[in-house]
């Protein structure tokens, strides 16, 4: 292409058009590649690779801290450790509506969300309110040291109890 542009009569011949077209094509192509690259780099840059967030695994201590027929809220971890007749299980305290932290109401025996008024039973089932789903159950197990551990990263598909 630079050779053609050096031709002395290139200002009048039809080749000017093809040069211009080729130049435009190359230019648009280069800009498109640069744009796509910037989009990929921009997306990668904006997605943090390391997060300094608390671990999803919570150490809740020895299971005998949770007497039968009790609900123990841990607002710092956003969970309820419930010791029901079938055993110990853990509920997420994060409302399924818009992510507010729910509160245990011992005088009513229910869990209630302060933001938009959703109410739940201690097994997570919704009583009323805008929440679309019950409070999720979280995987709960006892490690080799005898401590109760809870994984907050994923909800359980089926109910599980820890029996001591």
């Amino acid at each position, binding site marked *: 292409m630079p050779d053609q542009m050096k031709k002395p009569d290139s200002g009048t011949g039809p080749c000017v058009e093809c040069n211009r077209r080729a130049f435009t094509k190359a230019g648009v192509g280069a800009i498109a590649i640069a744009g796509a690259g910037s989009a990929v780099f921009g*997306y990668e840059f*904006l*997605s*943090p690779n390391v*997060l*300094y*967030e608390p671990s999803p695994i919570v150490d809740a201590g020895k299971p005998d801290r949770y007497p039968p027929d009790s609900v123990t809220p841990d607002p710092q971890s956003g969970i309820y450790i419930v010791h029901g007749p079938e055993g110990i299980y853990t509920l997420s305290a994060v409302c399924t509506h*818009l*992510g*507010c932290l729910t509160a245990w109401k011992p005088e009513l025996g229910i869990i209630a969300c302060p*933001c938009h008024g959703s109410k739940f039973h201690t097994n997570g089932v919704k009583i009323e309110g805008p929440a679309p789903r019950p409070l999720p159950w979280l995987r709960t197990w006892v490690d080799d040291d005898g401590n109760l551990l809870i994984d907050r990263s994923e909800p359980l598909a089926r109910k599980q109890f820890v029996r001591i």
Partner: protein
Amino acid sequence: MINLLEELAGVRNTRVWRSVFRAGSGESNLHRSLAVQQNVFLHLASVKVRRRALEVGVTWYLGTLSLGGFLILVVTGILLMLYYHPSVPQAYADMKDLQFVVSAGVFLRNLHRWSAHAMVLLVFAHMFKVFYRGAYRPPREFNWVIGVVLLMVTLFLSYTGYLLPWDQLAFWAITVGSNILAAVPLLGAKIRFLILGGHTVNANALLRFYVLHCVILPLIAVLFLAVHFWRIRKDGGLYIGEKTNE
């Protein structure tokens, strides 16, 4: 008094003055139009306006008042930035320092907060006024679209500023708001992750909202404001109604 005007005309005809403002002195309409057209800031506005367009009833000055709110927010916002660190948990302490320790801090913070509320109100009122008077109709339909963008920018500025005090209200408001964002089909969770810079409202979210609030959104606002004002001139001035439009 006349001498003063003559002196001023003398200054306006000096070489230095005319190198900055090319139109020298002169009382003619041509000189006056040149003075407006050749100034990058003034050229956004019309050289002439109809007397009727300046009457209160036509606009209630709602657009100008919105701009006034924006200017107050820029000035007070820059001053607040001098005492505010966008980090956890320092942000909350800085907000409290502004209220109780910094001289005139509580005045600036409250001026910023109330102006923000007022600006949202004024922008909505401005749009209702434009809508019910039919001032959005051609040839002004594109400026209406610019106005909708500016409404969005105003709301985003309001929303991002809401997190910065880093108190309970801020934290839960942004938790709820970002979960609403996650309701976007398919991309929702990803958008939420990018906006917050994490899975929860935390230090990254505070910093991202701070940068959006103090740099990105104000720049977008200034850009669209310039186009908005320039289009008023290009679309034939303020809409003054059918009956008196002669």
